[in-house]
């Protein structure tokens, strides 16, 4: 794990971004299209590839902000690595690395999986399960790292109030029930089960892991805002406001994008434009979040340098 972290530090974030973005673009354009999506939205092969390109370009710009955001946070943590908050910010930055790398890696894996399915339809169910698991593993690892960092930062100050915990539980319960309802509605409301899986497996292998990852993420967002609220230092707090708001925006938008894409993926009656528009709004929020993290981190970095 330590060796992996060292290797990660040595790799230039922007070089990694360029390589992953290029691979993703090439695979999405060259490999055979996703037959299910083509059928669902009545697309020809050319239309499918044009659509992929239109989706890809803004997505690549958003990925760039993610790489830029985590890189600046890691540069700052290198300056304060011997301090307690340095260690905690470092763990948060590892979480952001997972989110940043995860987006293009998910895109690459999906392109490969659906190309395999194109030649072997029998593997469709397996591809769906693997695709979900890749997303969920990335979310769990990313939010767990961010959660460890934010929890230790927040633990240095006052604990959350019982009212705030009650409100988080209420919000999350409602969110979880809506997601479960949405998923079961797709399974039972359509003639063909879009997941091709028994309900209990969907519950245990899709709903539970997603809800766990999202809960970790939501609680992390709350804790970083709590740390910001209780932090001292007028100038430090101003910079921290950007980072805390940025991380909260990244987590909330990542959750919403996963929620929408995993929940509506198989709802063919939904307008594709509407779904894409909503996804892009949340992706744009995520990009703003990464830029806020970069801006706040640069301010904190300056404090450590002058």
């Amino acid at each position: 794990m330590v060796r992996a972290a060292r290797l990660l530090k040595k790799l230039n974030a922007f070089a990694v971004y360029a390589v992953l973005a290029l691979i993703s673009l090439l695979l999405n354009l060259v490999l055979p299209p996703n037959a299910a999506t083509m059928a669902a939205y009545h697309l020809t092969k050319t239309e499918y590839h044009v659509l992929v390109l239109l989706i890809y370009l803004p997505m690549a710009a958003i990925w760039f902000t993610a790489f830029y955001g985590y890189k600046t946070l890691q540069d700052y943590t290198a300056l304060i690595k011997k301090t307690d908050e340095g260690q905690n910010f470092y763990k948060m930055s590892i979480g952001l690395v997972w989110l940043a790398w995860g987006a293009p890696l998910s895109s690459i894996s999906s392109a490969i999986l659906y190309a395999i399915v194109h030649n072997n339809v029998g593997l469709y169910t397996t591809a769906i399960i693997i695709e979900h698991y890749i997303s969920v593993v990335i979310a769990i690892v990313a939010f767990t790292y961010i959660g460890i960092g934010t929890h230790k930062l927040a633990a240095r100050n006052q604990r959350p109030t019982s009212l705030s915990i009650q409100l988080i539980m209420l919000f999350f319960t409602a969110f979880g029930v809506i997601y479960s309802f949405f998923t079961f509605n797709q399974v039972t409301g359509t003639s063909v089960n879009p997941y091709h899986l028994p309900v209990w497996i969907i519950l245990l292998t899709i709903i539970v892991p997603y809800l766990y990852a999202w809960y970790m993420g939501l609680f992390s967002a709350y804790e970083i805002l709590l740390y910001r609220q209780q932090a001292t230092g007028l100038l430090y707090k101003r910079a921290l406001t950007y980072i805390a708001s940025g991380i909260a925006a990244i987590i909330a938008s990542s959750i919403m994008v996963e929620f929408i894409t995993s929940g509506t993926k198989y709802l063919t009656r939904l307008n594709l434009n509407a779904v894409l528009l909503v996804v892009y709004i949340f992706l744009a929020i995520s990009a703003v979040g990464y830029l806020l993290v970069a801006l706040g981190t640069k301010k904190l970095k300056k404090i450590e340098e002058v």
Partner: protein
Amino acid sequence: MAAKPDLYARVVRITHIYLGPAADRFIARQVENHLHKEPEKISQSDLAQLIDWIRVAVSLLTDDHEIIEEYVLELQRLADSHSHNRAPKRVAHEG
């Protein structure tokens, strides 16, 4: 952990209001880089120069002149109070 010398600790305490957890590192850096001393060995006679360097450094961090002036004023007050606190002792010693 050994207690930090009073003057250094008081400068850090004031700085904490503006720079939070970065205060200790910030002051240590100013003393080491500009006064070429070990941070905890600063004396009252170093304060004027240190305050000047802090003003320059904080001006690079923010354009908010109100905060810069408030911070410098707090440090000036500390310098004044420290010199007043020391004066009677010196008089007594000289006497």
